[in-house]
């Protein structure tokens, strides 16, 4: 059963499809939690699976399995965080889980794909599920519809550009298999057409990762989609996007200077733009959207190093990114009582209203900013070291300066919750389940900061 996780998720989605067709409305939340946990177990036990299917179009190796586990962790956390009261219209609950499952399935297939058509198919499975859940938001009128339209159109354009690039790749290699392309590409990589093809092909994933200049969708979609949906979109698809950017960047080995320069420029612009615009944001989710753009820039530092360690550090950073973002989003989820957006001012006095939430927010925000001893620091250290090692001092300094810029708005979140007085807001009581999740996220972020070696070794072996 080498494709156990994929089959399991298919089963998961179909099951919820059946739930949604069924007349008697069952409470699907406990089902979703239990089933997603089983899915996590299934993914973890198949981490050592190896194999190749469909004459090499579908590859199961440690690289893909590591990403599948991360994606699955993301799904499980999102399902556990989903608040049944307020987020999604009740009648769509089953469909919501189904689409989450299908999207995750698409992402899992994506990280295993080693052939252009398979890549496109998997990407679209994942994207279309997300297009469908963005408008499912309770209590809002237009904002989520606008978001879903934007997401769909931007997504379609990005896919179009990606297909255009893939056309060039096919034209050069006369094959859609990445292994064949890799064999042919060294002849073309010095020429504009080679670079052009690779960069355009990456566009689809730059879009998912919200890297400049394909970032326009992210703040609007973050703001418009429901809090849970945003949590998912902000974390899980980005993991798979990084996996595919690495796969495609591998085509350009050994590090082609022009190609690397393009990545450096994109990375620098992305982090600078994200952080500068992030400074003035009032809505926490919008702020996180710009933070995501900046982080896309950071993670590119690992990829543009074009080295084994660089890729490993990019995976590590994405793993940390997953958990620290989940931390901030969870606070947002718990703060918004009826699923509305949370503004930075709403955080005022959070430390008095809910000390644990304030602490979760503080740890995650400090991690996003890259302050030791959190995972964000260790991840950034690896990224900086590897980019520097390959001689890209410029981007390291730009990254360092950006860290300082970004601290301002991350610290602002902490500042609001610790040094402002609450304005007529009562205490927030957390249930056991919510407390446990908070503690777990804090633990994970700190653990990844202090004890990175075990995971780092796995990631090194994976790339």
């Amino acid at each position, binding site marked *: 059963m080498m494709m156990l996780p994929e089959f399991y998720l298919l089963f998961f989605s179909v099951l919820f499809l059946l739930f949604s067709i069924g007349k008697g409305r069952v409470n699907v939340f406990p089902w979703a939690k239990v089933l997603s946990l089983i899915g996590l177990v299934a993914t973890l036990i198949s981490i050592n699976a190896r194999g190749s299917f469909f004459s090499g179009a579908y590859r199961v190796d440690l690289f893909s399995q590591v990403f599948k586990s991360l994606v699955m962790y993301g799904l499980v956390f999102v399902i556990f965080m989903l608040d049944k009261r307020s987020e999604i219209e009740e009648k769509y609950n089953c469909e919501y889980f189904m689409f989450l499952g299908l999207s995750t399935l698409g992402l899992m297939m994506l990280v295993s794909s080693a052939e252009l058509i398979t890549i496109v198919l998997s990407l679209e499975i994942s994207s279309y599920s997300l297009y469908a859940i963005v408008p499912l938001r309770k209590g809002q009128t237009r904002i989520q519809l606008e978001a879903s339209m934007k997401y769909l159109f931007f997504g379609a354009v990005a896919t179009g550009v990606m297909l255009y690039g893939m056309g060039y790749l096919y034209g050069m290699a006369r094959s859609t298999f990445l292994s064949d392309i890799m064999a042919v590409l060294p002849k073309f990589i010095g020429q504009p057409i080679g670079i052009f093809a690779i960069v355009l092909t990456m566009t689809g994933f730059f879009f998912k990762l919200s890297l400049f200049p394909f970032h326009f969708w992210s703040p609007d979609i973050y703001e418009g989609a429901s809090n849970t949906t945003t949590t998912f979109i902000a974390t899980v698809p980005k993991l798979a996007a990084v996996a595919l950017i690495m796969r495609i960047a591998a085509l350009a080995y050994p590090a082609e200077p022009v190609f690397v320069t393009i990545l450096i420029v994109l990375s620098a612009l992305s982090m600078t733009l994200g952080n500068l615009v992030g400074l003035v944001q009032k809505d926490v989710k919008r702020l996180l959207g710009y933070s995501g753009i900046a982080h896309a820039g950071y993670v590119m530092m690992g990829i543009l190093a074009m080295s084994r360690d660089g890729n490993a550090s990019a995976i590590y950073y994405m793993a940390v990114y997953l958990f620290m973002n989940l931390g901030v989003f969870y606070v947002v989820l718990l703060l918004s009582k009826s699923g509305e957006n949370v503004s930075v001012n709403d955080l005022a006095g959070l430390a008095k209203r809910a000390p644990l939430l304030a602490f979760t927010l503080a740890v995650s925000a400090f991690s996003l900013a890259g302050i030791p001893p959190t995972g964000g620091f260790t991840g950034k250290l690896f990224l*900086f*070291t590897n980019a520097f090692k390959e001689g890209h001092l410029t981007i390291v300094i730009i990254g*360092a300066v950006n860290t300082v810029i970004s601290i301002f708005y991350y610290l602002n979140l*902490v500042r609001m919750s610790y040094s402002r007085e609450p304005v007529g807001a009562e205490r927030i009581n957390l249930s056991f389940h919510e407390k446990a999740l908070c503690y777990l996220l804090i633990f994970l972020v700190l653990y990844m900061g202090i004890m990175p070696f075990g995971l780092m070794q796995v990631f090194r072996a994976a790339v």
Partner: protein
Amino acid sequence: MGDYLLMNRLDFPILSTTIFIPLVGAAILMLMRHDKAIKGIALVTGILNFLISLLLYIHFDPTTPLFQFGEFARWMPSYNINYVLGIDGITIFLILLTTLLAPLCVLCSWTAIEQRVKEFMFCILVMESAMVGVFCALDFILFYVFWEAMLIPMYLLIAVWGGPQKDYASIKFFIYTLFGSVFLLVAIIAIYLTTGSFSIPNAMFRDYSFGFQFWVFLAFAIAFAIKVPMFPFHTWLPAAHTEAPTAGSVFLASVLLKMGTYGFLRFCLPITPKASVYFAPYMVILSIIAIIYGGFVCLNQTDMKRLIAFSSVAHMGFATLGIFSLTLFGFEGALLQMLNHGVTTGGLFLCVGIIYERTHSREIFDNAGLGKITPIYVGFLGLFSISSLAFPGTNNFVGELYILIGSFVSSKTAGFFAVVGAVLAAAYMLRLLKQITWGREDKRAIRDMNLREVIYLVPLVILVFWMGIGPSPFVDTMKTTLTNLFTRMEVFFQ
């Protein structure tokens, strides 16, 4: 592991113990409910840690320049990052100062902090752990982790328990320090890529090119100059000092500022000696500006805490002047000055905290004329004030004397201006003292100091006189390390 480290010969890993006892204490007090119990545990933890750290002094071998009580464990082998601890003559007293001040800070917050006592004590203990860690760490990454981890509890101390402008002060403090730190990080990575290891001693006195040293020195210097703080990077300090609660001000003044000068001694001089010699004149000029400018600004202050904060700028200017006079006397004086400033300014901030609890004002005018009302208090304040202006017989006199000798040796002009600064110190401290003691006729009923307050000032008073009259135990302990540093630096002086 190299030949720089003498492994720990005690029965237990003493440095790790000193670092982690406060963390354990912090974890225990998170489980407590009653404020009394929480304060008690924090105090016991602080005292216990101080007693353990005294063992360091007892077992310290002053005859070797190597790092002692060494501990070594692999941390992230693939990047050659290790958990290496060790102390030498430079750090031993800084650690003792930290562990001494932690219980004093708990005591001084006994009644001053009424809200969220648990979190406050938690922050104090985490701070202690991180500060001791900074002084013990012999691995760049370990150092950097402690260095930055310190920011978070300090930020919270100011932001949650601070004065009216805490919001502004805490953010400014955080961003300023972080700005310096990222350049430190880039410099650390640069050194790692050159030497292949994150070990601090391994990076010292290597044959780097001048260009490399030039940039690394600048990156280091920004981080440390902000921390010291040297002119013109000092603007975060008055805000942070003034708004922080007493315990926070004490930690800031007595320990955090020392990390800047410690950084110059530990990193800039040995790792980038050529660049240090090259930049020394500029650093001396900045130090002189800090001394004179700090003095004049002090003369104009009406807020006691702001006055002491600006006096810190001037005093730390003496420390950096000593370091960059590049003489043995200068080094010794700088290190003594760091300790003296920690003791004296710590004492002064504690005094301000005591009076603030009673009058709820830090304005000099509101607290003027206390001489007859609270004689014990004024006695302590007077003592710390004259110590601060380097009166002979008190600790600062010894430190400043060493530094003045050192700076006259290297540059007469610098020495001259430093003397002017010393006179200014007398002017502003005596002005403060005069106002507080005889400032106005007043018949207010203000409670004099109680036993608890006397208890936490007495250790500092003892140190003021001990280091003022018999400084030889201190000088002897640091001598070997500093002499070694000086002789290895001498090559670069020409």
